[in-house]
């Protein structure tokens, strides 16, 4: 089905202007609300209305990608999060509106066909309700119809939650029943995956696949002082037979499904609360059909952690064993929106590109020491594990990862005339081949390495505060296309009380050589193609309601979270954001 053709149409466009005006005015009025928006609803009782409005006016300049039709355009993006809350009932909705090409410049695509006829001219306006939920919470029960967030266990089996960095907000749209008793819990869920996947260029929501998810969980909790929780969970995901991001390209596979069953055990308060243990094991079966041939394969996902909490010392040990385990249409799924599991990576939660996230084995140890009641603390972390990008081969025939990093921190101590905090972090990461790749790269050779550091100092006095941040990482990829690159930045932020914040920032990266060269040709990039300056000003009218202006440039490249990566284009232009609450 041609969805882009379907979106076009004169009647909808005629409705856009008055609808847009009404929506924006409604959103703005939130900032001035001073009255209690409570009222009596028959049969429901006292009900209050709340609204969060986000209005973004943006001008985007050159993206430095191959498509010249998504450069130099203005857009308006409007989001409303509205809710009605009673004692036991709650109704929620999110409304998203995107209008491109309308504010500052005429579309370059005028006279050209949209969408499939000409994929480069894809910018079009969009209005849709999202995150519709009706929730009933009588005592220990929760009954929901609509979109909900859902994580089974530690997310190894299923994780429907927002991944902020990647702008993917996963929810399961359907029916949900949960019981949360003191000693017994269970949940039953069924519906369609609804990943609100925001396009980084036009802020439009990318069309969602219609993947069907059915699952449930159950847990019993032994009473204190034992406090052990034993749980089981199971789910089935049936994947729509499309592969491409716009739903047009069909997969060569059909009838794709993943079944997962697992159990978990947790003892969070052993030894007077000093010891916390967690264990989870999952089995996976993947079935699919290629032409007339049915295929089936299995995998497993095991995660365990033990945390010892003494007065000043904390020791956390984690272990993972993910073998051919990914709740996604493919074992090597590339689309972040269709990976429905989020197994803990046990590594530094940083920007490094994790590979083979469904086929890894190894562990990590973290030690924290706080000089309590003093403000200083430090931590030492080390992770050692192997992965294999070939999902059917052992991780220890792939690549060995070793990553160590340290942190020194001083927290804020309030009460004096001058207070300050510090956070200093540094580390090194190596990937070593565990197999002979070819005649040049042999087992034992370094495949990648990275050193990284970050310093954050905040100084405050009275109504004034300064925040200085510097971060940098140097990475070398021995086998890859990009041999060596550096990514970093520095910023200073001044804050006056609640109302005013000013941030000056300079980012640098040479990760994308082609972008750097083409940026260097621009006259206004007087710092060079590798540097991205920006300024952000924010004015808070009253708590919760503010206006911010961003002007400048930010680097593109690869953003990664938990092993799932997304390519984001370079940004240059400005963005005006207004947030109001009611």
């Amino acid at each position, binding site marked *: 089905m041609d969805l882009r053709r379907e979106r076009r149409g004169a009647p909808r*466009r005629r409705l*856009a*202007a008055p609808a*847009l*005006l009404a929506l924006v*005015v409604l959103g*703005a009025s939130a900032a*001035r*609300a*001073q009255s*209690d*928006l409570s009222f009596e609803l028959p049969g429901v009782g006292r009900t209050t209305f*709340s609204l969060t409005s986000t209005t973004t006016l943006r001008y985007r300049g050159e993206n430095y990608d191959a498509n010249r039709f998504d450069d130099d355009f203005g857009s*308006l993006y409007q989001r409303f*999060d509205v*809710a009605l*809350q009673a004692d036991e009932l*709650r109704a929620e909705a999110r409304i998203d509106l995107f*209008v491109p*090409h*309308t*504010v500052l410049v005429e*579309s370059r695509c005028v006279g050209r066909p949209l969408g499939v006829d000409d994929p480069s001219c894809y910018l079009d306006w969009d209005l849709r309700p999202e995150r519709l939920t009706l929730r009933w*919470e009588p005592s220990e029960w929760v009954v929901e119809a609509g979109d*909900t*967030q859902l994580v089974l266990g*530690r*997310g190894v089996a299923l994780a429907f*939650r*927002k991944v902020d960095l990647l702008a993917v907000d996963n929810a399961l749209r359907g029916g949900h029943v949960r019981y949360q008793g003191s000693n017994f819990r269970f949940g039953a869920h069924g519906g369609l995956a609804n990943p609100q996947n925001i396009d980084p260029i036009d802020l439009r929501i990318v069309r969602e696949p219609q993947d069907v998810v059915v699952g449930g969980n159950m847990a019993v909790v032994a009473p204190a002082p034992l406090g052990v929780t034993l749980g089981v969970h199971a789910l089935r995901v049936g994947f729509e037979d499309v592969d491409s991001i716009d739903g047009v390209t069909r997969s060569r596979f059909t009838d794709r499904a993943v079944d997962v069953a697992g159990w978990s055990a947790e003892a*969070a*308060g052993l030894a007077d609360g000093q010891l*916390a243990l967690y264990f989870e094991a999952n089995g996976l079966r993947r079935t699919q059909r290629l032409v007339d041939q049915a295929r089936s394969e299995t995998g497993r996902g095991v995660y365990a952690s033990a945390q010892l*909490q003494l007065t000043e010392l*904390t020791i956390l040990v984690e272990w993972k064993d993910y073998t051919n385990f990914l709740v996604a249409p493919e074992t090597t799924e590339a689309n972040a929106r269709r990976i429905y599991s*989020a197994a803990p*990576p046990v590594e530094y*939660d940083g920007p490094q590109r994790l590979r083979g996230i469904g086929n890894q084995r190894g562990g990590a140890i*973290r030690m*924290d020491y706080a000089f*309590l*009641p003093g403000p200083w603390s430090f931590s030492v972390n080390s992770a050692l594990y192997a992965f294999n990008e070939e999902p059917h081969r052992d991780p220890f025939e792939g690549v060995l990862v070793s990553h160590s990093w340290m942190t020194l921190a001083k*927290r*804020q101590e*309030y009460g004096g005339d001058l207070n300050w905090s510090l956070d200093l972090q540094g580390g090194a990461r190596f990937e070593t081949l565990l197999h002979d790749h070819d005649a040049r790269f042999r087992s034992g050779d370094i495949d990648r390495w990275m050193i990284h550091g970050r310093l*954050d100092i905040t100084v*405050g006095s009275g109504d004034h505060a300064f*925040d200085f941040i510097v971060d940098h990482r140097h990475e070398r990829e021995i086998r890859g296309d990009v041999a060596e690159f550096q990514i970093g930045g520095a910023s200073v932020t001044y804050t*006056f009380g*609640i109302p005013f*914040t000013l941030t000056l920032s300079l980012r640098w990266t040479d990760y994308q050589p082609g972008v750097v060269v083409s940026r260097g040709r621009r006259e206004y990039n007087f710092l060079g193609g590798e540097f991205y300056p920006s300024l952000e000003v924010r004015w*808070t009218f*009253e*708590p*919760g*309601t*503010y206006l911010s202006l961003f002007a400048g440039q930010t680097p593109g490249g690869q953003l990664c979270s938990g092993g799932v990566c997304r390519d984001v284009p370079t940004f240059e232009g400005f963005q005006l954001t207004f*947030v*109001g*609450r009611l």
Partner: protein
Amino acid sequence: MRRLRLVIPAALALAAALALPAGAPAPAEARVGGRPPPFVLPAAAGGPTSAPFRMGDHLGQRPVAILFWATWCQPCQQELPFYESLYQRYREQGLRVVAISMDSQATIMRAGPNARRLNVTFDVVTDVDTRVTTQLNPRRAAPFSIWVDRAGRIVREQEGFSPAEQNAVAQGIAELVGR
């Protein structure tokens, strides 16, 4: 499209006019908003408390400050110690503070120890599936604070935190407790 190009700047101008207060900013001025749901969230392992936090036990009885934070959020590391100082000052007058960790499964085990390092003694709970976060903090801002008065009404919401706000926040909490 020509009509839309005229409508949008006009709408934004109107929005700004409606939004801008007539006088100077009034950061400590309270607004009356919605009500929080009676959520129940588990304590963070290794954190300062071990029992689940039940919002229903406090709604309509005592003032509550709800803090959304995460281990990876640097301003949150500055906000939690400040609220700890306010908690110590006003706990006898009924103030409750709960810090809801927005950490994912990747970092959730660090939430409790992180709070201990910050010398926090109030409730620190986890929301791994972000269900409560979705309801109360739909923009998923971190840090994000919500004040609930003794009547169970949300009177203030604030995105972000800086030490420069300490005077205004301290004054606001004093008013919340005395209200």
